[in-house]
């Protein structure tokens, strides 16, 4: 007499299938007894008592499936086990088990989902361009999340996509919303009639979230990757995005978002805009608004303003209505900043921004530049800011993009993993010169699922550290997202406020606050 068995880990079968497998084992010729059970403590105990025990079962857990057979000889037991296993395998194939259907190639994916017209590609940079090319050849629109794709390949991909009438979003395209489906880092926003083309990922998230929170909605949000508006690429996909929104019957208002496009690209955008009757709001951060106006578009100074202007236009109001409301709000922020700066000790001279979104870091620099704040340093400086040569060490008013390559090699993006930023918050809090720490918190799919739980301890500790040293440290942040996001924007804002942070309604608002704090500190 012999006992044989096996353990199946990570495989789950419904009770009927388990019952049928047990029947197959029990009815096999020469089998004396058999069982198919989950590896709970109690079931293991029964197997022992019933003479169906194998020492290997010791290591099985509650979620493992145990198959045990007692038979007259080993061949019979092995045959019975094979029969039972076949039953399980058949059921697995019939139910389309996940691992059976997980394709390992683009061709396999297309075969698995016939009729698909879109591919989201996230692979190591060196493979990304080839795979994107295959997808375009197969007639699929592409969102290329991967970065480190050579510029020449990006141009090649975009030219091919243009010729085929397809979207080639990216490389380094982290967010998009197509037909209501959020892709990669995106927020849960209402559907509506505002279309976005963005060469700035967090810019797209900020605008789409504010639009949604204002009761308007997004028709499409097309990402292009940040390099698209540079001279070399020539805005190929930005222009294709504009064309797509022009033709999209659901889109009534358009918003274009990027850092300042190259002059030649801006000219082409202007030419495209001239042929469009739909109102176009731009958030070309840092650009002279007169240039945009001359091109027939409505310039917004900030992401927030662009969102509010678009929402106003969508509601049949004038864009200027949104601007007027913002001016009043910004006066209150200025007053708050003056009060904050007044509480800072004499040695507390600087603001320190620790960003996960590059666009937000740029927007903060622009608002500092507006107030002529001297000594603004950044690892991603805009014209007017000074380069921060060692991004690991702050200097002056430091505005740091923690999503820059220097910080993300071998580490998850700071929108996902807060550990690096939390350490940096404590470092900045320890520095006697720090008066204000500035943060962006970006919610939505893909982002850190528990921002309050992970940021709050660092915020509390930073404030305590400064307190112990007799300093009053302010931590201010914005929370980009919507109540519908998995993290729930109002809940996160309330949680961070409880931890001691001042929460502002947008990155523009908190950056304006910080700029005024810096301005006031500089004037002391």
């Amino acid at each position, binding site marked *: 007499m012999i006992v044989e068995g096996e353990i199946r880990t990570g495989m789950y079968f419904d*009770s009927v299938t*388990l019952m049928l497998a047990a029947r197959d084992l*029990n009815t096999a010729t020469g089998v004396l007894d058999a069982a198919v059970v989950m590896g709970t403590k109690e079931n293991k105990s*029964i197997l022992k008592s019933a003479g169906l025990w194998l020492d290997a079962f010791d290591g099985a857990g509650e979620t493992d499936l145990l198959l045990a057979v007692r038979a007259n000889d080993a061949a019979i037991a092995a045959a019975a086990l094979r029969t039972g296993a076949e039953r399980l395998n058949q059921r697995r194939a019939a*139910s*389309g088990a996940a691992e059976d259907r997980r394709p390992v190639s683009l061709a396999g994916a297309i075969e698995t989902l016939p009729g698909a017209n879109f591919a989201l590609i996230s692979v190591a940079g060196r493979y990304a361009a080839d795979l994107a090319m295959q997808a375009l050849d197969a007639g699929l629109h592409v969102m290329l999340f991967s970065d480190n794709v050579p510029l020449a390949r990006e141009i090649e991909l975009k030219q091919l996509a243009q010729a085929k009438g397809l979207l080639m979003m990216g490389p380094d395209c982290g967010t998009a919303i197509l037909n209501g489906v959020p892709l990669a880092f995106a927020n*849960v926003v209402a559907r509506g009639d505002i279309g976005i083309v963005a060469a700035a990922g967090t810019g797209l998230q900020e605008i789409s979230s504010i639009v949604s929170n204002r009761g308007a909605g997004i028709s499409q949000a097309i990402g292009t990757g940040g390099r698209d508006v540079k001279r070399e690429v020539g805005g190929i996909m930005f222009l294709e995005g504009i064309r797509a929104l022009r033709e999209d019957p659901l889109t009534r208002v358009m918003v274009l978002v990027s850092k300042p496009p190259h002059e030649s690209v801006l000219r082409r955008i202007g030419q495209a805009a001239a042929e469009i009757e739909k109102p176009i709001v731009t958030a070309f951060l840092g650009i002279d608004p007169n240039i945009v106006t001359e091109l027939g578009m409505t310039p917004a100074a900030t992401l927030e303003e662009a969102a509010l202007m678009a929402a106003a236009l969508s509601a049949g109001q004038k864009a200027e209505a949104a601007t007027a409301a913002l001016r009043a709000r910004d006066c209150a922020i200025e007053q708050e900043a003056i009060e904050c700066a007044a509480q800072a000790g004499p040695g507390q001279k600087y603001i320190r921004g620790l960003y996960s979104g590059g666009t937000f870091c740029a927007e903060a620099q622009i608002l500092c530049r507006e107030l002529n704040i001297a000594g603004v340093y950044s690892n991603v400086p805009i014209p007017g800011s000074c380069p921060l040569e060692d991004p690991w060490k702050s200097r002056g008013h430091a505005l740091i993009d923690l999503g820059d390559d220097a910080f993300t090699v071998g580490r998850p993006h700071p929108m996902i993993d807060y550990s690096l930023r939390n350490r940096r918050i404590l470092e900045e809090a320890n520095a006697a010169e720090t008066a204000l720490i500035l943060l962006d918190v970006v919610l939505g799919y893909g982002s850190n699922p*528990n921002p309050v739980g992970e940021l709050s301890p660092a915020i509390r500790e930073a404030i305590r550290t400064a307190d112990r040293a007799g300093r009053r440290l302010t931590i201010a942040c914005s929370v980009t997202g919507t109540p519908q996001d998995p993290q*729930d924007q109002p809940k996160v804002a309330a949680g961070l406020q409880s931890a001691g942070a001042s929460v502002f309604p947008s990155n523009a608002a908190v950056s304006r606050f910080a700029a005024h704090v810096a301005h006031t500190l500089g004037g002391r």
Partner: protein
Amino acid sequence: MIEVLDIGDRVETGTYRLHSRFHGALAFVRNGSGSLVSVVDETKGAGPVHIVVRGLDLSHTDFLAVAPHTVFLGCAAIPVEQRSDSRLQPVDLNATRLKRNLGALRETLLSWSRNRSDRGPIQQAKSGTRASRAGQGARPTGGIAFLLHQHPAPIPSSAFEREFADRFRGGVERLVSGDLEGASAILGLGPGLTPSGDDFLAGFLLGLYALEAAGRASLAPERRAIGEMARSRNPFSAALLNCAAEGRCIEPARSLIHSLFADSEPTVIRHARRLAAVGASSGADLATGVYFALKSRQGAGT
């Protein structure tokens, strides 16, 4: 068009990863908390952790995210108006009616068990082989209805089944007599993805909750204590037991329990048959747990 017909009140917002696929159902676990949600077709029906969908190809879906008013399944974003309430509702307790209805439930479960044993796959397959040699009604297909026999139940031929039945009976006797350690003896015991012991305990917890809702407030500590003991690392069992401890359950179980308090015998029988049809024996095992809780605790204090 893809529609969400129902979303349970214990489906947490968040993003999920695919855990396992079944015929007509997908199980997802939430990133972070590890809590379970089942995306099911209409045949499976509503439950506290169920998202009931129509028009979705389950075999090609492996992404789920739940926002307060939207469910994202695969590439579809589906608006959700409101969530169903899966909790047992307060009922009036009429001792005579409950006693009569419990009798009907017991007979229905025994009848279901006999039918399964007579016509079930084990018996069909075993006729002329080992089972007929033993001349016994060995029957994992009949669930744990052997507990309901007033006369000595047939002795199973298999050592495994004999051991299972003995232990189960011992655990239930302890639990019914007020020794809550009986729950530990039953937890995780027996066949099934959710072992029969877990199904029984879920039913027992629901029975206690129903009696509390009918005014037997003194049962609350016992329900809480069993709920604490009935912890499982099997996500399917954990979801079942956690919900049951809060008085939440799948729709057929809710209907049966309500019916036991409020309806006549034919209605009880109809609901009992419907619940018994869930899974291989899960529904019947759960109903057996309900039966023992109601029968043994209906006289508890207010």
